[in-house]
Structure formats: structure tokens, C-alpha cells
């Protein structure tokens, strides 16, 4: 299963990708912001993990744009962000995010959220 990991922090991209490898997902694509993620997204990508605060295009704008595409309408999107106030979480849901991880996260939380969304990713 191919993952698209979107974060402007190279450190965070490496942490997420290493965490994915550790739980058995080795096929990953990276992007540093929403614009780059939209350009890299194709139908082979079955799971998206995105940050919120990024230059050029934020994670919520990227998710909205992704949802407007036929090939991205149903792909699971997991947001991993430092934002954690109620309004932000609701905004992310409205944008089309399927689940939400607050930074800093543990590998266990990442695994739980991915496991919960795997059926949708496999569909």
C-alpha cells in the first residue's frame, strides 16, 4: 500500500516514514506542502498523512482540493498536526480529514489510526 506523507518539516517526514516502515508500510511518497502533494498524488496512493501548517497550501486546503478530485475523493486522509483546539479539529473534519493525530505522537497512536482506516484504504 502506497502512502503519501506531506509535511514541510523534513524531520517530521522522516519520523512518519520511519514509523510507517516499522509497522510494515515501506512504499511511501513525500511532499513538502499541499501544492507538491497535489502534484504527486495519483491513483496508486491509497493513504495520505498530512500536516496542517505548511507554506503555499495548508493541509486543510490540500484535503479540500484532494476531495474535489475523482481519484482523491475517498482516499483516507490522516492529519498529523500540532493544532489541537476544538475549532481546528472541526475545521479539519469539514475539510474531509478522516482522522486526526496531535503532535507529538507515539508510534502506537499512529498505528491505531492507520489500522482503523485500512479498510477504507483497501476498498
Amino acid at each position, binding site marked *: 500500500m502506497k502512502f503519501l506523507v506531506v509535511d514541510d*518539516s523534513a524531520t517530521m517526514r522522516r519520523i512518519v516514514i520511519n514509523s510507517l516502515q516499522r509497522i510494515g508500510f515501506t512504499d511511501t511518497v513525500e511532499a513538502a506542502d499541499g501544492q507538491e502533494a497535489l502534484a504527486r498524488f495519483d491513483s496508486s496512493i491509497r493513504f495520505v498523512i498530512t500536516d496542517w501548517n505548511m507554506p503555499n497550501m495548508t493541509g486543510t486546503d490540500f484535503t479540500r482540493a484532494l476531495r474535489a478530485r475523482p481519484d482523491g475523493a475517498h482516499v483516507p486522509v490522516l492529519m498529523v498536526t500540532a493544532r489541537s483546539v476544538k475549532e481546528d479539529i472541526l475545521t479539519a473534519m469539514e475539510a474531509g480529514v478522516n482522522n486526526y493525530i496531535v503532535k*507529538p505522537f507515539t508510534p502506537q497512536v499512529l498505528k491505531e489510526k492507520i489500522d482503523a482506516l485500512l479498510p477504507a484504504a483497501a476498498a
Partner: protein
Amino acid sequence: MSDSRTQEVLYETEAALRLVDRGLDGLRDDEGAAADAPSTGRAASGTSTALTFEGGLNELPAILERANAQILAVLARLRETRAAIETTTLERIASTHEKIREVTSATEDAAINIMDACDRATQMVDDLDAIDAEPTPDRERASTVRASLRDELFVMMGALQFQDITSQQLAHASSVLVDMEQRLIEIARLFDTRLDVSGKMTAVPEAPDARTYDPNATVRDAESRQALADEIFTAVRSNAA
């Protein structure tokens, strides 16, 4: 009188004096220009100087009147700016101090976590060496130690998440500094409208892109914040179902 009020009065007085000084400079310039003007004769020159001086004295009340109006305008702007600065000082600076303290603390916590994990990992490598040195190495035990070693390396990597959060906190602090800088330049210009800071401020950075950081980013209470997110997702989904 409090220190801050004393400073305010000093600023206001200085501004008023500058304006009056500028008015008097203008008066002197007029006199100087009249004195330097090509004369058509001693009597004519003397008459001209006397007239200008007399005219200048006549103008003094008007100059003072204009200065007074300008001082009042300056004071009004000062009050506005002071109110804005007070808000900034009380709210934004205080939260920025807190963020910077948190950066220090998060950096130290991460360093300690990584060093602790390094110590444990080093001990595990020693254990593996000891197992290897045995006449009949215990492969099962070695496998367990290796798994624990991988866990420790993972702990070290996870601890590096602080970098993403502290960089957002520093971006927020930087934006507050840029904002304060702009306000200080505005105040400086109140005292001297000809002030040109462009040459002196070449190194002033732009405020970070507000989309790239969360002003509330924190490393604290991650578990309870995650629990809140889970609770909201569950509630919204059950309402929608």
C-alpha cells in the same frame, strides 16, 4: 508618578519641544535668508531685516498655535500607539516569553530523553557483545535484546518531534518581534517624520508565513489533546450516523 508615566511625559515633552524647535528654526532660516539676500544698499538691507524680524515675531503666536495643534495630534497618536503597545505587551509578549521558555524546556527534555535512550542502547550493545563472547551464544536472548535496541532507537527518533513544534513556537516569537519592531518604528516616526530607517534596518527579517506555524503549538499534554481530538471525532461521527 510611575516610571512608565514619567517616560510618557518625557516623550510627550520631547515631541513638543522638537516641534517648537522646528518652528523657531524656520524663523531663524527666514531671518538668515533675508540677511543673505542680495542687498540693494545698506539702508534697504537694514529695512528688510528689520521687517522680517518684526514679521517673525508677529508670526510667533501662529507658530506656537500650529505647534500646539501638532502636539495635540502627536499626543493623540501616542495614546493610540501606547494602548496598542500595552495590549501587545500584556498579551503577545507574555505568551511569547512562555513559548520561548517552553522551547528551552522542550529542547532539554528531548536531549535528556535521547541521552537516556543512548545509555540504554549502549548497555544493550554491551549485552550483545557479552552474548557473542559466550562459548554458546544464546540466540533467543540476543534476538530479544536486538528488538529492545530497535525500540530504543525508535524512542530517540520520536523524541526529535520536538524540533517541528519548537520551530513553530520560534516562528510565532519571530512574528511578535517583527510586529513590535514595526510599532517601535511608528513611534520613532512620531518624533521625527523624516526618520529613514531603511538604511539601518537592512537585516530586519520579514514575519514568518502565518500558514506555516500554529501560535498555540506545544509539546505539552499531548495525551489529553489527542483524547480531545478523538472525542470530537467520535461525537461528530455519531451525530452524523
